[in-house]
């Protein structure tokens, strides 16, 4: 695991809001999300579908286009304020991204070598472009690189395509890698390979990573700090140990209770009752109120503020205000 002690900030997001306008009404996908990523650390963002975890990162990266209305108090990358123009220049250079489905990020009619070289050219790489691509492909285990550079995306398996995307993302020595469900489409043995590869790269380059996934197991294995999102809001934030060993928010606790115990005991699972929030018709108060076993009257009407348990551990629940 990476070293958390070096505490300089790579990314800072304060009070991010993202709203989508659909034919059926307004959807507040992200509401008041704040977080920081420090050098060399892995920030895990955990959440189910509709929690706003992907919308958060797409908003930060300016990838929502016309569809979403984004606002924030502060958005800094390495101490400098990000603008739509500067984030465009940083994308694929100092900030790299890896998505769930690598096929959509690769052009099927161009050779992979060409596409990787093109990515370097776009960022005005100083040095031998061809050698750099070969080096990175070798690094992610696509060998022999010279030969495979001439191949097309369909000639690679799912796991290899994800390796290619990782090669492409680290071409320019990024400071931050945003990985959005990077292993969700892969089998567990391949998932283990890809996560291992990402770990190696982080250890050798000191790059930071934001890992977005619904898989609590993956988060527990990789993340230094964790944000748990639900209904567009941050429910709980803490170190991996705090989140998994002493979860404070009823949602986090419920989530951890609903998966089978690692020791294989056949105890009955304890599910979170109810259905995921209706984003078009969110409750006035806490988004989790309808499913929360500990809900109180105030939870229906007012959104809770974050309460601190320790320097690193915060949760948003009226239980914390009591």
């Amino acid at each position, binding site marked *: 695991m990476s070293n958390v002690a070096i505490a300089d900030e790579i990314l800072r997001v304060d009070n991010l809001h993202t709203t989508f306008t*659909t034919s059926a009404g307004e959807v507040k996908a992200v509401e008041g999300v704040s977080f920081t990523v420090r050098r060399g650390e892995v920030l895990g963002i955990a959440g189910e579908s509709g929690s706003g975890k992907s919308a958060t990162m797409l908003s930060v990266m300016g990838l929502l286009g016309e569809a979403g209305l984004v606002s924030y108090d502060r958005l800094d990358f390495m101490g400098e304020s990000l603008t739509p123009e500067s984030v465009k220049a940083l994308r694929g250079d100092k900030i790299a991204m890896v998505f769930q489905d690598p096929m959509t990020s690769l052009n099927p009619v161009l050779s992979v070598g060409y596409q990787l070289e093109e990515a370097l050219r776009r960022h005005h790489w100083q040095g031998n472009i061809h050698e750099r691509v070969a080096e990175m492909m070798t690094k992610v285990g696509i060998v022999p690189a010279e030969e495979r550079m001439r191949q097309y995306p369909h000639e690679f398996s799912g796991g290899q395509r994800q390796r290619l995307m990782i090669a492409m993302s680290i071409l320019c020595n990024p400071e931050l890698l945003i990985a959005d469900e990077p292993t969700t489409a892969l089998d567990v043995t391949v998932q283990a390979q890809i996560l291992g590869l990402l770990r190696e790269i982080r250890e050798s380059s000191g790059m930071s990573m934001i890992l977005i996934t619904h898989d609590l197991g993956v988060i527990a294995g990789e993340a230094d700090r964790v944000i748990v999102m639900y209904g567009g809001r941050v429910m709980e934030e803490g170190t991996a140990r705090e989140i998994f060993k002493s979860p404070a928010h009823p949602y986090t606790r419920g989530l951890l209770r609903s998966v089978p115990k690692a020791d294989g005991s056949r105890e009955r699972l304890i599910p979170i009752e109810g259905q995921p929030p209706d984003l078009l018709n969110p409750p006035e108060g806490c988004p989790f109120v309808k499913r929360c076993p500990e809900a109180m009257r105030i*939870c229906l009407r007012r959104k809770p503020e974050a309460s601190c348990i320790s320097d690193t551990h915060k949760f948003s629940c*009226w239980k914390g205000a009591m």
Partner: protein
Amino acid sequence: MYDTEDFLPLTPEERESSEALRPSRTYWADAWSRLKDDRAAMFGLAVILAVIVLAVLGPVFSRYEYDGMDFNVSNDPPSLAHWFGCDMFGRDLFVRVMYGARISLAVGFIASFISLFIGVVYGGISGYVGGKLDDVMMRVVDVIYSVPAMIYVILLMVVVGPGLSSIFITLGISYWAPMARMVRAEVMRLKNEEFVTSARVAGASSARILFRHIIPNAMGAVIVTLTFSVPGAIFTEAFLSFVGLGVSAPMASWGVLSSDAVPAMAIYPWQLFFPAGAISITILAFNFLGDGLRDALDPKLRK
């Protein structure tokens, strides 16, 4: 700052009350609400409805007969008495355009429904049965596609002879190929859907699968194709009448009216302008509506 009451646990009733259910809407109600937001499509729909109302009721309430001649007003320009002017026999052009709309719309709809029927049956069988039969049936469609439809239409019209009913039949049997292809593609897609597999596991017969599961889900695409094929048929009818293979005088379709107006086009331009304008506006309206329907009925856009 807070009441202690605020921190009482929620009672089951309070929990229930926070459960706001959205009203139930069928697929069609949902599609309609999306179509309503589409201005171009609603404009198209309004034009089509207006044309239909005028075609059905206009000639009934008009002072003039579509074949009533009055040589005192031969070739009169548009006026308060004759809104669209008169033709060389002094027949009121407004009533003739409205009457022509009957013929043109009837041709558009009936020919489209005939091609719909043939296309749905042909494409449905081809797509559902698949395999060798599908290969053969689709090669037939390819052959039909490879010869321009206008050639059959003209040949058939020459063989069957001009007249309204022969136009219906000719257009219907010439324009089913695109419908058949579309229906086949839809059926092929739908028969691999998991809900069809679920019906097979439940033991449903082929007929049940086709009529309860596949066809209801293909209706959206069929309606869109139909909306686009109506203007095609109207246009073809206009063309046939224009070249003299369509309905004959004193009946008037928009094509006939345009055709009649051509010789004197330079002197009495309104005689061409109004029927040609009716054709253009109607075809445009159908295309607007078709585009809107495609968006409104597209299952991929449904969330």
